[in-house]
């Protein structure tokens, strides 16, 4: 692919613009801004990554991962705005998932600690963990709103905050993990995932591409489960005060 063919491919963007115009969806402005942002952001990150890959400095690589985790925590916390300390909880959860998984991959020799390998892999891990944490937050809060009576009955019998909430915590973890578990089931049947598609397009044999994809599947399951688990087990405490009283208002 060259710049000319990429420019020609951008004509594809005329299709959603035409739909929007004809069907009066009023999305033209958003589509144009979105397209422009995607091109600019991706170009910028292309240059940044090229620089980081060339410098090949361990610390710089780590800073880049840290920035990704910060941004992801901020976005995941948007789903749990009503939960106190949601940003720091999201950060702990996403970093726990990312660092553990990345550490294992490096330790077993699946990848090397070089920016060209660690950064794209971290991007995938952080992105999936972010979605998991956001869903976990949302589900946890909804569970507390729905089960306020059950929680109070259990508290009144002398349950601790954790004992009263354990069912809700588990349900929120499950919800956070669900998209990853579901997509695992359809891998190769309905979808050829991004990484595998990219490798095949770049000329790598499908048999090699699937090895990478299997690795990605393992690492995402691990990261997502750690992040969902950590966020749920840290966030439930925020629904109680120091006297083990539910701080949500009764309906």
């Amino acid at each position, binding site marked *: 692919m060259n710049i000319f063919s990429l420019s020609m491919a951008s004509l594809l963007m005329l299709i959603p613009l035409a739909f929007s115009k004809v069907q009066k969806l009023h999305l033209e402005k958003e589509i144009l801004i979105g397209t422009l942002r995607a091109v600019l952001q991706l170009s910028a990150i292309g240059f940044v990554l090229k620089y980081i890959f060339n410098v090949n400095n361990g610390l710089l690589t780590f800073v880049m991962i840290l920035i990704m985790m910060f941004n992801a925590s901020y976005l995941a916390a948007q789903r749990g705005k009503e939960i106190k300390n949601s940003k720091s909880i999201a950060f702990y959860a996403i970093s726990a998932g990312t660092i553990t998984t990345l550490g294992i991959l490096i330790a077993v020799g699946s990848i090397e600690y070089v920016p060209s390998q660690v950064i794209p892999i971290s991007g995938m891990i952080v992105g999936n963990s972010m979605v998991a944490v956001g869903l976990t937050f949302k589900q946890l809060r909804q569970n507390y709103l729905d089960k306020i*009576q059950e929680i109070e009955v*259990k*508290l*009144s*019998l*002398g349950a*601790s905050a954790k004992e009263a909430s354990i069912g809700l915590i588990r349900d929120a973890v499950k919800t956070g993990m669900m998209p990853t578990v579901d997509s695992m089931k359809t891998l190769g049947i309905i979808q050829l995932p991004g990484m595998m598609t990219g490798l095949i397009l770049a000329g790598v044999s499908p048999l090699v591409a699937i090895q990478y994809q299997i690795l990605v599947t393992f690492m995402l399951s691990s990261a997502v489960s750690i992040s969902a688990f950590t966020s749920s087990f840290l966030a439930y405490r925020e629904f109680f005060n120091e*006297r*083990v*009283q539910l701080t949500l208002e009764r309906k």
Partner: protein
Amino acid sequence: MKLLELQSVHYRINRTEILRGIDLNISTGEFLTIIGPSGSGKSTLLRLLNNLNSPTSGNILYREKNINTYVPEALRVQISYVFQKPYLFGTKVIDNLKYPFKLHSKEIDLGKISALLKELNLDEDILQKNIHSLSGGEQQRIALIRSLILEPEVLLLDEITASLDPVNRSMVEDFIKQLHQRSELTILLVTHDMQQAKGLGNRTLYMNQGKIVHDMPTESFFGRGIDGELDKFMSGQR
């Protein structure tokens, strides 16, 4: 012995004042019935005693120590609360009765469970039943047993017979009466039912707008010529 003491207790949610300066002493073994119009703060008073909420200002003492000095989980076993609407969890009835034992790492006392079931006129078969197959009366009796099983010192009952039919209501009333007679249990019962307030308990509190308006022995309360707002409330509720 002075078991519970409330000193100028206020409770506010946002800007709404629910309790406006409650002073109250309760001795071991007393049976208080609390009556008053809806929204007068009766249930909130029970919630504060069970430590599900804390006063906005003022103190609650239990055995002469501020309740905030007790571990909440342990305190709630001693001052047990039965909600107006029975809520059973898990799948089977037995899950609910084992729960308090498990929470506090105590050996499950099936003998005690059987005895309480019998006293409340329930068959042992009920233990294996699905919670959703129970009638409202059965659910409330199970909830009552669940709160009593670890032998609390104070029992808080929040309109527990409100949704029961007359037969179930009188069965539960008889049980509570006998329970109080044979033990040192201190009971606070919130009710809208004047006959219940008259028939149970030895002290009656009348609350209105977050305050205790009358506090006197049940006999005197129902024997006196009632006045103004109380008269209106009671004739409306009777």
